[in-house]
């Protein structure tokens, strides 16, 4: 029997997991990080455009602060996020970026004096201040009031991930890569670790720990077209769901990025539009100003994706064997800018499409179409990152903490990953320090044997179904029927078809019967798990009869705060079930710092108000009147107090501030 003990066990070696590992190591804990791949290959590395943090250094971010970042994040979420979590996040983000700078991340820096930028398709000269020289630069991104997205060209996630991974290695954190956790070990509502399969030789090991964290990113691969890496299959989400104790929240909140390149679905960063790139239709017409005259290409991602699909539906898409698409034009930014700040985009376009986007005019236009990109939903946690199962935490994209609600802003993903690693990582380490393990080796062995028998049953099965066909079918259903635009009929039929696939997935046979390094066996247990997630997404979308953020129902186009200002919770109660159970968690307006309002896109009267909205607005006015001398920090504290670990609540210094 293979058992490995540690104080803390972190499943997932991307930014959130590694930053949490650093927090554990700094508190003297014996820490193990498990990863499917060498940690520096984690999908955090693929984040291109940047990280939001209100450092406010550049001319175009003057006046930026936590309050504006908070407002943008809440509006972006369509009021679905947890506002206390948003406050915790925006307060820590500037500290995260400065910590990363000290760890060697080569952030792009400001050069004082004039510089030319492209805004609204025109060249404009801005003047950077002398005192900002050498400080961290930031670029524009969608849905933000200020230029707040800090970057290293368009390889920001890569630089951040290497910086944090280096720090974890410096602290001698134990990293075991090519390991896949397949089930959680728990007893009396307490998590004690996981059963883990070695992807090199197929052997099983129990990793037993006082505290366990899931930081495994998103689950985009349940869709056929996604920007996500091939490892983003949500296996750890399903593993948590399968305990029956943990809920997955807001799984229907799936982000479709506007500009993946056609047909590979590889991401082209929002930085393309942030830096001044525009969208054109088959006639070369720039169409976004027709729909969103104010924010144009820089409306939030859900809005831009819908407008693109709408415009194509109106007959303005470019025809191709891969379906219709529109053009992304960054050639107007000029070769020099592209080769310095959008070089991965250029590399990708040349390598996969044979197009150099720096070529002037039509020649450089890139074919783009919205595709699955990010999972706002995930494993439901409290503000410290702990799930409903004691001792099990989750951080980063895999969690529903819930920073993003129903739509995430560009630049808030890697930012959340590293910030949640700081905040949740510290809460996690504090928990692990105090926790005591009470599980016996007998109980551990029982779970190991159960998984061993399960894998045996998969290789021995001789049913008629083929697991790869089931996987393809699931991915197509999700793409066709649970996409950018959704409606009751499609969702209902998707739901029924997925349930049938669950039954089929339990009636397969494998060609390759090896228990060792056998990719087909891995597909067999993974697809069974992925189907559970697909059903959670689809059921959440089917039941939510409103439109909020990225969840858009053609048959229920209004945001309905009266009935739907809540968080969807999906559960898998029994192993043999073929569908999830669904419950809801109310979001309390009376505790909000910013009650629901107009988001800034489309028509103004597209929502149904909740009775509490007016009450809370009146409360807030009263608090403001009663405290006329309060500064912005004091007022914030009066409206919605929040806590942070370490010294993360300290005020963030900016140019021109004391």
């Amino acid at each position, binding site marked *: 029997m293979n058992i490995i003990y540690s104080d803390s066990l972190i499943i997932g070696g991307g930014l959130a997991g590694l930053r949490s590992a650093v927090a554990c190591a700094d508190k003297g804990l014996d820490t193990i990080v498990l990863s499917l*791949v*060498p940690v*520096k*290959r984690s*999908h955090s*590395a*693929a984040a291109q455009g940047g990280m939001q943090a209100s450092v406010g250094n550049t001319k175009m971010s003057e006046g930026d602060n936590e309050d504006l970042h908070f407002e943008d994040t809440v509006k972006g979420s369509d009021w679905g996020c947890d506002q206390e979590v948003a406050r915790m996040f925006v307060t820590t983000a500037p500290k995260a*970026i*400065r*910590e990363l*700078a*000290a*760890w*060697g991340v*080569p952030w*792009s*820096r400001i*050069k004082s004096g004039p510089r030319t930028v492209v805004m609204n398709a025109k060249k404009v000269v801005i003047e950077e201040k002398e005192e900002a*020289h*050498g*400080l961290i*630069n930031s670029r524009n991104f969608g849905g933000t009031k200020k230029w707040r997205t800090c970057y*290293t*060209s368009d390889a920001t996630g*890569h630089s951040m991930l*290497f910086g944090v991974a*280096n*720090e974890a*290695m*410096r602290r001698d954190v134990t*990293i075991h*890569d*090519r390991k896949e956790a397949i089930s959680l070990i728990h007893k009396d509502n307490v998590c004690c670790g996981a059963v883990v399969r070695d992807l*090199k030789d197929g052997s099983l090991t129990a990793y037993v720990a006082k505290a366990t964290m899931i930081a495994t990113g998103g689950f985009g691969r349940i869709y056929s077209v996604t920007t996500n*890496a*091939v*490892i983003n299959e949500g296996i750890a989400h399903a593993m948590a769901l399968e305990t029956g104790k943990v809920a997955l929240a807001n799984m229907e909140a799936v982000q479709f990025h506007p500009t993946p390149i056609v*047909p*590979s679905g*590889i*991401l082209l960063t929002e930085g393309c539009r942030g830096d001044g790139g525009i969208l054109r239709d088959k006639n070369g017409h720039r169409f976004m100003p027709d729909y969103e005259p104010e924010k144009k290409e820089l409306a939030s991602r859900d809005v831009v994706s819908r407008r693109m699909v709408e415009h194509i539906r109106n007959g303005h898409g470019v025809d191709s*064997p891969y379906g219709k698409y529109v053009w992304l034009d960054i050639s107007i930014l000029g070769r020099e800018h592209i080769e*310095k700040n959008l070089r*991965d985009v250029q*590399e990708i376009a040349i*390598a*996969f*499409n044979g197009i150099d986007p720096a070529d002037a005019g039509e020649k450089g236009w890139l074919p783009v179409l919205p595709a699955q990109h990010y999972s706002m939903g995930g494993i439901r946690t409290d503000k410290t990152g702990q799930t409903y199962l004691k001792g099990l935490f989750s951080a980063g994209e895999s969690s529903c903490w819930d920073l993003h609600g129903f739509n995430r802003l560009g630049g808030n993903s890697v930012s959340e990953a590293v910030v949640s690693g700081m905040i949740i990582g510290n809460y996690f380490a504090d928990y692990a320090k105090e926790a005591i393990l009470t599980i016996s080796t007998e109980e551990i062995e029982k779970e190991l044997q159960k998984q061993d028998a399960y894998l045996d049953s998969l290789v021995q099965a001789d049913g008629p179904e083929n697991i*790869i066909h089931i996987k393809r079918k699931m991915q197509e259903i999700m793409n066709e029927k649970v996409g950018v635009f959704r409606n009751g009929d499609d969702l209902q039929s998707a739901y029924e078809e997925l349930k049938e696939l669950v039954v089929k997935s339990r009636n397969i046979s*494998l060609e*390759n019967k*090896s228990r*060792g*390094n*056998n*990719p*087909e066996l891995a597909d067999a247990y993974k697809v069974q798990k992925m189907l559970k997630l697909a059903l959670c997404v689809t059921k959440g979308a089917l039941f939510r009869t409103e439109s909020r953020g990225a969840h858009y129902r053609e048959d229920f186009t209004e945001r309905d705060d009266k009935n739907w200002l809540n968080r969807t919770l999906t559960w898998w109660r029994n192993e043999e079930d073929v569908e999830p159970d669904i419950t809801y968690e109310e979001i309390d307006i009376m505790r909000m710092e910013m009650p629901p309002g107009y988001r800034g896109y489309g028509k103004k009267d597209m929502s149904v108000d909740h009775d509490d909205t007016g009450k809370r607005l009146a409360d807030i006015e009263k608090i403001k009147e009663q405290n006329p001398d309060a500064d912005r920090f004091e007022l914030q504290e009066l409206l919605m107090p929040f806590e942070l670990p370490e010294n993360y609540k300290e*005020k963030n*210094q900016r*140019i021109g501030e004391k």
Partner: protein
Amino acid sequence: MGRELTFKILKYDPHQPEIKATFEEFKLEELPGMTLFIALNKIKEEIDSSLAFDFVCRAGICGSCGMVVNGKPQLACRALTKNFSESDTITITPMPGFELIKDLSVDTGVWMEEMTKRVESWVHTDEVTDISKIEKPVEPELADKIFELDRCIECGLCVTSCMTKLMRPDFIGAVGLNRVARFYMDPYDNRDADDMYELVGDDNGVFGCMSLMGCEDHCPKDIPLQGKIAHVRRELVKAGKKR
């Protein structure tokens, strides 16, 4: 109809040493825009479900999929089949220089972690940073130069392409020397040439390089490796002479 391609792939599982390594052939019809990522997955899903290989981002960003294709080390995700037009047969073998896991899958993770620790690939400083305060300024041109070297994705192609590595199994490779060059110019890192000499001032380090330039030829990120290795070598010769 696209042309019929023959993929000749080395198959071997070290966990089953009784089965000898063999080249197996797989035939596929070429599709427009087909990459080796698409082709290998098609082979796995339609012909041989036991075939092992590594991809993660499939966009040339993560460095997982280094393979030797028709004798040339490269990232398989970016390799378009149409660029192999001289013959309809494409031969793929795993990267040498790393432990073989199975077929085309090699273990770069353990090697790269060891390298990271050998060159202490992190910022060394006594300065304590107050993360609530404005960050230390860095000249924008210098930040760009550091980023240029920071772009390394540790794919291992430079190690696979290196003749010194063939002769000296413990050679740190261009990837390791590039790390030294990168931190040596980082203003946050206070290591000097003497400190770096301690790390790589020997034949398994910067003095082992024979300047055959295989690393730079195959670097998918076009990092100027040879110039940087030469620079580190010159700095460390100076430091060594003072000893």
